[in-house]
């Protein structure tokens, strides 16, 4: 299990490959991998987004991501989990978050991956500020 918070851009697919190849215990033991990648779009609520600043409360984020991953691994029989989340200055098309779950079975992999990303969105203390044409605006949970 690994949780990583990054200040700079990352390639989610490369992270999956790198992490998986560093886990010999997975070799031949998982039948299913489900991956979710959230990416910064260049539009939101009808406006062009030129950049985004992602602020976070670092120690609280780490604590809650660890707890969410622990909850997922208690609820579903999963072999491994990788979570990577960006913070700081992002450009459109930049990956924001990666959640990868390895499991013996498809249904467990899907459910655990969905649980982690849904809970992360609700509980992890991140705040988005978008740079739009007119300046900067804080994203609201409804947005």
């Amino acid at each position, binding site marked *: 299990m690994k949780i990583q918070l990054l200040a700079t851009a990352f390639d989610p697919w490369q992270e999956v490959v790198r992490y998986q190849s560093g886990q010999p215990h997975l070799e031949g033991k998982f039948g299913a991998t489900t991956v979710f990648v959230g990416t910064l779009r260049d539009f939101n609520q009808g406006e062009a987004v030129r950049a985004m600043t992602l602020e976070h*409360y670092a120690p*609280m984020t780490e604590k809650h991501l660890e707890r969410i991953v622990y909850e997922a691994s208690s609820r579903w029989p999963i072999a491994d989990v990788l979570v990577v989340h960006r913070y700081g200055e992002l450009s459109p098309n930049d990956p924001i978050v990666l959640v990868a779950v390895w499991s013996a079975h498809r249904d467990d992999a899907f459910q655990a991956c969905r649980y982690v990303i849904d809970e992360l969105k609700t509980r992890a203390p991140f*705040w988005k500020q978008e740079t739009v044409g007119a300046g900067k605006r804080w994203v*609201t949970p409804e*947005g």
Partner: protein
Amino acid sequence: MSITVKFFASIRMKLGKSHDTIDCKGIATVTDVWERSARISPPAHLLAAVNQEYASLGQAVRDGDEVAFFPPVTGGQE
């Protein structure tokens, strides 16, 4: 004998500070921390955490705690 206070996102910008340290004397709850440090009425939808755990505004605080204030979170992805 102090409490560390942190402010994030729009709350941080509104108050013009990201952190504060206050004397814990006379401080019983999260609301007391807000009043002593922010000096304005709490905005709608204000969230708080005590030692990195979500907390209600009425929750008790004690010496050495870290109390944080922030708006609803908007992480993850749509």
